[in-house]
């Protein structure tokens, strides 16, 4: 009998509907701005293209070291929508493969930076006025006091230039901002009664930090991450533009722009097509970012 009752546990059912309601409400405030929906669709399309690049791209062999001088330097036409570059590679295909690198960069950098920054911020904020706070926050201060792009450039210059090291460099330059934001939120949440009651009831530190405080930090984390996605792509493109990112035969948007630069202004499409692609991707991410901001901005009309 008891078991039967458990199956139709009313609080459980209510929880489910509440969650569904919550998602509905979030979608409502997200989609109120049509631009965010456009951004979401755009990013979905680009992600789809990047994942299935081998099937979507008109000539997948253009992504690597492929030479076809018979087709070199063709302006945009119906067969090559973005034209071909100085080695006769189809630029549209290279852009699609370049998206793969850019998206990989964002995903990996965010998945390194967010956990590290958030954990350190939680620790420093919760153990305020102890040596833990001093150590973490003084190190953070050092990292925050230098523009991320500059630090990333310096670190990239010291390592062998490739995509993995660019990711590593951007991550090293980026975590401190999350640490600082979460530190500020945590110090203000520390005095809340629910934290206090968890302390009194003998909860472990990890329970207090990750189960009590972290859920309340979710909105600043998500807003910051969604606004950062575009900035990370921009930083990655700048690094590979100066030649410290992925190396030439690989299709990478920033590198493609810089190699096309040498052929300006006659073969303008070689650098313009990847430039446009960068702008488009970053813009879609910014559209989504604004939508996510509007979810968490309460009371804004």
């Amino acid at each position, binding site marked *: 009998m008891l078991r039967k009752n458990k199956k139709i546990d009313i609080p459980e059912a209510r929880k489910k509907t509440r969650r569904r309601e919550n998602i509905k409400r979030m979608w409502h405030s997200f989609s109120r701005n049509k631009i965010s929906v456009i951004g979401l669709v755009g990013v979905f399309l680009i992600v789809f293209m990047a994942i299935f690049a081998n099937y979507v791209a008109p000539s997948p062999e253009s992504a690597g070291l492929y030479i076809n001088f018979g087709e070199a330097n063709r302006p945009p036409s119906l067969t090559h929508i973005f034209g071909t570059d100085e080695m006769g590679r189809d630029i549209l295909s290279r852009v699609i493969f370049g998206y793969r690198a850019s998206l990989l960069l964002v995903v990996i950098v965010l998945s390194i930076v967010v956990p590290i920054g958030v954990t350190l911020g939680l620790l420093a904020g919760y153990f305020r006025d102890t040596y833990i706070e001093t150590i973490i926050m003084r190190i953070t201060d050092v990292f925050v006091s230098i*523009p991320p792009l500059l630090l990333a450039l310096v670190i990239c210059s010291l390592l062998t230039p490739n995509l993995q090291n660019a990711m590593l460099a951007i991550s090293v330059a980026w975590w401190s901002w999350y640490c600082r934001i979460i530190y500020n939120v945590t110090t203000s949440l520390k005095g809340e009664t629910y934290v206090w009651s968890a302390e009194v009831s003998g909860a472990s530190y990890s329970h207090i930090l990750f189960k009590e405080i972290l859920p309340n930090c979710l909105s600043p984390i998500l807003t910051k991450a969604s606004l950062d996605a575009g900035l990370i792509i921009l930083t990655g493109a700048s690094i590979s533009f100066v030649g410290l990112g992925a190396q030439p035969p690989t299709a990478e948007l920033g590198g493609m722009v810089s190699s096309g630069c040498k052929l300006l202004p006659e073969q303008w499409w070689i650098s313009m097509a990847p430039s446009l692609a*960068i702008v488009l991707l970053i813009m879609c991410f910014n559209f989504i970012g604004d939508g996510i901001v509007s979810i968490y901005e309460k009371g804004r009309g």
Partner: protein
Amino acid sequence: MNRTIKVILKRFVYLLIVLLGLSMLIFTLARIMPGDPVRMALGARAPEWVVQRAIEENHLDKPIYVQYYYWFKGILKGDLGFSWVTRRPVMEDIKIFFPATLELVLYTDILILFFGLLFGAIAGFYSNTWKDTLLRMLAYLGISAPPFIFAIVLMVVFGSFFKILPTMGRVSEGFVSPPVITHFVTIDSLIAGEFSAFFDAIKHFIIPVVSLSLKPIAEMARITRAGIIENLEKDYITAAKSYGISQKVIMSKYLLKPSIIPAISLFGLVSVQLFPHAFIIEGLLNWPGLSRYGMEGILNKDLNSIIAVVLVVGLLFIISSIVVDLITSWLDPRINIREGV
């Protein structure tokens, strides 16, 4: 007031600590890298004993903390070491290259402050009209494009297609450079009374300044717009309106001041973020500035110049954050100056 002075002094002590940490960080990063900077600088054909002597002279054979000690001792005497690329003391290089970059960044800052606040105020005041929509769309474009892409587009359109703007360097070849007084080309040529050189210099500034400023202008405009819309709903604005005070007075006297505070805080951040972007633009446009010097140091693994450039930018960053805090607390006395960095 007393508290303000105390806090500022505290901030300066912090500044020194952070700079010390920053120098240690960059120093360690620069020293643990693979590769042989001495061999790179002297060339592959330099005899072994020359390389050995250079290594010994620069204490490169000692452990890293000893190297840091020697480097730090040099700093106290105002000696930042020797650049392998330019073969001059780094301090001298910075004195030569820094003004060119500073001039670039200052003009960019003026543009950012003026147009960022102006466009933001227009968009906020006329929110949900066609002006607002247009400006918001342009702002999306602005925040989405890296500055080097703007520079390339401007170079193609105005440099190559219309041929009305120069795309390389700081002054054209035909002009005799004016006597160096302030190290700022525009001001120097004005002092010397050479107006043609002045206009030539201004022309050279247009492409780098515009391409650097578009992104920050868009960021500033967005945050100013948000601030104005937020404050428009406040009770004191309604009260001022019901008193019959004219729109212009409300706008300039009551609305603008509290609305631009977040924009000013952003400005401090943005104006120093310009430096790394200036790094890339200066390389592209062959601009003889600190950023190009730093970029060459980075590409050639020139340790001393990398450390120096990073420290200069870090110093500017912290000072600008102190200045911004002072300005915001002056704009809104309710805001206390932060005690941290």
